[in-house]
Structures are given as C-alpha cells and as structure tokens.
C-alpha cells in the first residue's frame, strides 16, 4: 500500500496528537495508554496517593504498574471500579465517598486518574476534585487520561506533572531555587552536559520535579525563581506555573542548533545573574566541527524517524538544517514546542508525513515504498532496504551541546561504516 492511500496526514496538518494517524490499522502490539505513565509518576512521588477510576481492565492492569495498595511512605494506591449502573447514571457520589474513605485512612494529597469510560460518560472530575477539597480537606489533583484522546503514553508523564501544579500555592520567592520539571533527582549524577552540576556548585538549589521527588518538593516549587526545562515532559508544568504563579521558564528540551543552545545559556545566565560555563566553548567547537563534516556526509540524505526516546520534530528540523530530508516522522505525542519546529520545517520546504507506527510487520511495507536513505531507529526483524541507524541508545536524558554532539557522532559513525547506497530488497 502506498502512504497516500492511508489516513496519515502531513506535518503541516497536525495541530495536536489527535491528528496523528496510524500508518496501518491493526495495532500489534499497540502502545501503552497514559494511565501507565501517570501511575509510574504518581507512585514515585513521596506522599502522593492515587485513585484510578475505570473498568475492571484498567484497574486490574494498574496493579502491574503499582503492585501494592500501599506505598513505602504510607501512600495509598487504590482502585475504583465502575459498575453497570454507574456507567449510565454517573459515579460522582460514589467516587466522593471513595475519596472520603481514603481521607479517613490518612490520605492528604491524591492523584485522581480518569480513564476512558468515566471520560466517555462525561464525569466532571475537575469539579469533583474541588468538591472533595472543600468537603474533605484533601488536595485532589484530577488528571484525564482517556486513551482515545491520544495514541500513546507520554501524556501520562506530563499531564500528571502539570496537574501537580494545582497543589502549588504562591509563596515568598526564593532567589536561588530553580525547579527542574520532568527530571528525577538521579538526573544529577547522569548529567554529562554538566549544567546541573555547575548550577549546584554555584549555590543554586535544584528542585527536581519528577519521580523520586516529594509532595513537599512540588509545593516548595511555587517559591522558585525559575523553571529549567530539559525534557519535553516538563514543559506543560512550566507553562502552567508561569501562568498561575508568574514563574518564568527556560527550555533546552527542543534545542539542537549550537547558536540556539548558546542563546538559551545566555538567557539562563541573565535569569540567574551568574556565569554558566559548562565547558561551552569547547563543546560548541566540537559540535561545529561535527556539523561541518555532517553537512558533507548527510547532504541530501532522506530519512524516516521511527519510535525513539526523544521528541522527533525539533531533531528533524535540525537535521533538515544540515541538509537532510525528513520524509516521515513517528510521533508518540505532539508538544507545544513542536508547532514552531513543524512550521520551520514547512517553511524550508519540507513536509514529512506524521504518523504513529503500530505494527512493524505491516508498517514496513508502506515505509519501504518511501525509499529513504536512512531509518532513524530499529526494526525487528531488520528490513534489508532500510538502513537502520539503531535507536540512539543513551540519548534519553541528554540535552544541550552534549546531545547534539551525540546525535551527530552517531550518524557520522553509522554512515562511515556502511556505504550510503540503498540496497535492493
């Protein structure tokens, strides 16, 4: 089948993840729903309990993510299962009763997850959460996670973090407190770019807002002077905090170009009133040297971008700047910042297909028809006529010049080992 015969749209037509269609219709194995990542995030935050409202499927499967009903700090992770009459008449009163029971068992801050069915029947969880807060004195963060509103799991990460913005109340500004939304405290030890370590050494208190943090850390975040976004999952929370608390934010999550990264560093220096080195001159020089080689080697090479551990739109725009031609991007999600990079691509004359790959066996036939020079990602089993670069393992968690250098080196290494001519199948 040719891609033109599928429901897939071009990137210029994508306004949100809802516009991203499957390349082929029968999902195997299919993608996880956002409940999965919301539970991983929620259960990883100390003091944060969870209540998931849904069918026997959703609630049973949630036990594969959170096996025990009680967390290490006494958090409660319970389940609310709808019955046949609640599906018709609603479950508001009973969910309120459930929250009351959990409150009586000691819960103070809770993530209220709504899945497909309560969303479908139109339960207003926002107002239910407000009523629960007033009558029960609990902080209830509702998060709406119907799988039919998206294709995959990333929104579980960022919606949960964004919802936690709701427990923040304005407080006195702490000048040297910087939040890092979307990252776990472990990110510090894996920080190869060195920005986080340097900030800490220069007296900045880093407040990681992700798994491994605590409810108190999220509440304290309201007093920070800046949100530093290094991963796209932190963007929505940062935007929300700017609106509700006036806390500015600065992002590296979608930056690959050396100049743009330098600009972001300069912005950071201004915002914090300190110099930020991070070995920038030598890192930038390395990137520029790699870019010079890359412009020759990558010029005119067309590529497909498959499922990988990073947001593909900004990367595709960067590679297009180096002379590559993006033909198709697999999108797990569509972030706010993707809009500007999509626009930039289109303005340069590129308009790749934007799809969700759900069945490797079926998808491969359509992808082969695009005859790209490269496929950024993996395919199992490998397709002879697609040069698979592999999934760029190790790239998740990187940002800044370090990430750009990683990508360039990976591509250059790959292409120098293999002749760049398409093999016939």
């Amino acid at each position, binding site marked *: 089948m040719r891609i033109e015969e599928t429901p897939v749209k071009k990137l210029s037509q994508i306004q949100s993840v809802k516009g991203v269609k499957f390349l082929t219709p029968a999902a195997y194995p299919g993608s996880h729903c956002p*409940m999965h990542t919301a539970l991983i995030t929620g259960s990883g935050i100390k003091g944060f309990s969870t209540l998931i409202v849904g069918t026997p499927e959703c609630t049973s499967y949630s036990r594969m993510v959170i096996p025990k009903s009680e967390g290490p700090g006494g958090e409660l992770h*319970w389940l609310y299962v709808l019955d046949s009459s609640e599906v018709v008449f609603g479950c508001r009163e009973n969910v309120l009763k459930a929250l009351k029971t959990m409150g009586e068992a000691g819960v103070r801050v809770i993530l209220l997850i709504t899945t497909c069915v309560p969303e479908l029947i139109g339960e207003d969880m926002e107002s239910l959460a407000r009523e629960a807060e007033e009558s029960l004195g609990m902080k209830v963060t509702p998060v709406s996670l119907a799988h*039919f509103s998206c294709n995959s799991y990333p929104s579980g990460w960022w919606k949960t973090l964004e919802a936690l913005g709701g427990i923040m109340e304005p407080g006195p500004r702490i000048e040297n407190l910087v939040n890092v939304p979307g990252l776990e405290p472990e990110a510090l030890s894996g920080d190869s770019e060195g920005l986080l370590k340097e900030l800490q050494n220069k007296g900045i208190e880093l407040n990681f807002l992700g798994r491994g943090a605590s409810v108190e850390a999220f509440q304290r975040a309201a007093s920070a002077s800046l949100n530093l976004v290094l991963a796209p999952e932190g963007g929505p929370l940062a935007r929300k905090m700017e609106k509700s608390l006036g806390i500015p934010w600065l992002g590296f999550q979608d930056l690959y170009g050396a100049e743009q990264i330098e600009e972001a560093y300069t912005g950071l220096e201004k915002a914090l009133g300190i110099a930020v080195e991070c070995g920038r001159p030598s890192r930038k020089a390395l990137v520029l040297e790699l870019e010079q080689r890359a412009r020759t080697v990558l010029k005119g090479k067309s590529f497909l971008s498959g499922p990988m551990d990073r947001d593909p739109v900004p990367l595709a725009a960067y590679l297009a700047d180096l002379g590559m031609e993006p033909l198709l991007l697999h999108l797990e999600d569509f972030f706010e910042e993707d809009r500007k990079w999509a626009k930039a691509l289109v303005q340069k004359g590129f308009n790749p297909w934007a799809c969700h790959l759900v069945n490797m066996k079926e998808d491969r036939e359509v992808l082969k028809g695009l005859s790209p020079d490269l496929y950024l990602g993996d395919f199992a089993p490998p397709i002879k006529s697609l040069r698979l670069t592999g999934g760029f393992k190790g790239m998740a968690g990187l940002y800044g010049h370090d990430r750009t250098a990683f990508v360039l080196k990976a591509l250059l290494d790959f292409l120098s080992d293999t002749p760049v001519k398409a093999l016939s199948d």
Partner: protein
Amino acid sequence: MGLHRFQPEPSGRMGILSTLVTIKGAALLEFGSMGHMRYGRTLLQRRGVKENCRLYATHLDEADISLGGTERLTRAVEAIARAHPGQPLFLLPSSVPEITGVDLFALSKMMQPDYPENLLVPFGGGGFKTSFYQGVEETLLTLVKVFPKEREKTGRLTFNLLGTCSDQVKFQSDAREIQRMMAGAFGAEPLVLLSSETSAAELEGLGAAHINLVIRREGEKAAIHLNERFGTPYSVGRPYGLKASAQWLSEVGRLLGQEPNPAFLTSETLEVEEVLKAAMPRIRFLKKQNPKKARLSLGGHTDVVKGIGQFATEEAGLDQGTFWCDSPEMVEEHIPYFSESRWLKEAEKEREGIVMARGDFMEYLGKPGELTLAQPDAYWRLNAYEPPYMGFRGAINLICLWYNALFSG
C-alpha cells in the same frame, strides 16, 4: 461501592480473551483502545500463556466515538485477513464501543461476505454486566457451535477436554494430568484440549471424539451442545484427591462402556496412599496440639474450592477453615461469595492455618506463593511443567505442599 485495594473481579471481556488467546491458527481483534490489549498481553505472558492466537487492537479516537465510526474496525479486519489467509478472526468487544452501542455481531455479519476465507467470530460479553466466568462460558459455547464440522468418530478412543482455560492456576499441568489418567485408565488419546492446546483447524474435528470431559462448569453448555449435535456423551467433574479421582475415572468408564484399567488404578492409589501414610500421623498430632494451624482455607473458583476442600477434609486430615468463591453466580452451600471487604474481615481468623487463594491475598497474609490457587497471581508462572493440583499426581503435590506449609520453616 466499587472501591478496591486489591484487583477487582475481572470482566467478561478478560474471560473471553483468556480463553481465546491459546488457540493456534487464529487471530483476534479488539475494537477498542490499544491500552487494554497491550496490558492484557503482558498479563497473560506472566501467567505463562503463549500468544498462539495473534492479538490485535484497532484503537479508537474521539471522532470514532462521537460519530459512531467503525472504519478502524473494517480497515483492521481487511489488513488482518490479508496477513492471516484462511484463518478465523475473533472479534472482541471492549468497554467504550459497548457504551456507544456498537453491534459487533451486526458488523461481523455485514463484513463476512467480503472475507470468504476468514471466518469472523464476534463475541458479546464486553459490557459491564458480564462476569469473567460468563465470558469463559460464552466463549466455550461459541467455539463448539461455530467450528465443528461433520466428522466420523475416530477409530482410536479419543476425548475432548472442555475447560482447560488459561485463567486457572496450573491449567497446563492439570490438563496434562487428566491426559495421563485417561491414557493410563483407558488408553485414550486427547483430540481437542479446549482451549489450552488446540487450533482453529483442530476445532473442526470436535465432533469426532468419543467423550467430552467437562472439567469446569463453564464448559457444560458446550458439552450439551456437542451431545445434541454429535451424540457425544460427557462427564462433568473436576477430580481432586484420591477418592474423587478414582470415582471420576469410574464415571468416565461408565460413559465409555469400559472399565478403567485396574492395574493403573491400583498403582496410582498406592502412590498416593504412600504419601498420605507419611504425612498423616504428624498432621493428626498437630491437630491435637494446635488445631488452629491444621485448618485449610480456600478461595477461588467454586469447582476448585469444592474439590480440594473435599480432599483435604475427607482424606488428608485437615479441618475446614474458611471456604469462599470468587464469583457471586457460583455460590454453593458452604462456599459463599466473598467480596474484598468481606474477605479482609474473615482473613484474620485464618492467619495461622493454611491458605490457598488468589496470589495478592496470599502476599497480604504472608503466605507462600507456591500455594496460590487463583488469579491474580503474585508469581510469574512461566513453568508449564509445575506439578498439578488435579488428579492423582495433584493429590501427592497438595499433600506435600500442605505438609511443608505446616512443618517447615
């Protein structure tokens, strides 16, 4: 109220999926969000269930829901039929389309003429009123209605096992033990193991077996149907322990018009009696010393609880603790249904004794996972060759497990 600390009772859809997943030479498509199948597959993997039937999902979006669109379904059926030439395609219902009123049966009828090589088999049971076991029953009955073709009875003595479904702990081992017993007692061979080890092609030959052995009550309607269509006699019983296993063989023999091989019965009986002889004295002594310990509590499928309970109390010297079943439609005398809240209340009384129940309850009570009787399992049960619970070898296994639960550690 639907508030749970532990996993809730699974749905009819999960029962249908558990029963169909083991069938080779077939595909399955769920018209619903992808998430269900993604998790469902992993859950089955942890239970050691091979995905013989390839499991697909269509996914849904808001436009499908608001406009009642079924294009995702029809396009997926087309793609799957092409990828699985000549294979049947099971159509699984899901919660969201059930609410929006999608009629899988009507859609299936409408699509079938376009796929003469692929039998489309829709299932109901996706709604909120269908229990897991009702899903299992519907599936077994549908399979025996839809697939069998006219066949002569086999020359050799053969049987079908109805109800070897993947939800039961040790479903493979128990099926193996029944096969061993039938071989030893009658020289009989299995034709179809429904549904742990069979294929869509094999199901066509269901009518050729000499007898159907229903080993869980959900299979009885299927056996009645096969009896009406092919005249195949059937037995209904789930043998646990020495007495019940011998009685079961005797009943099967009566239906076959053939006595069970006496040498086989003797050797099996002796083996179990040896183990009982070794274990009983110390169990009797414990009963006098600490009666609270020598109690057995069982929670799970009624057929399982009844069978094991009878063996434990009538032959193995244990006292009856608390027995309960996990489905309100299977309540029997002395085997009430316990919801989670009721079970949590009753659990404390039986902490000192032996408990065999669902894995998460076992964990909660600090009881060993080897004695798990029902889903959800806390173990990853990847070993299909664990000793069974059913039959003669199951009796030996149970005695050993109980003995070690009482006296070791």
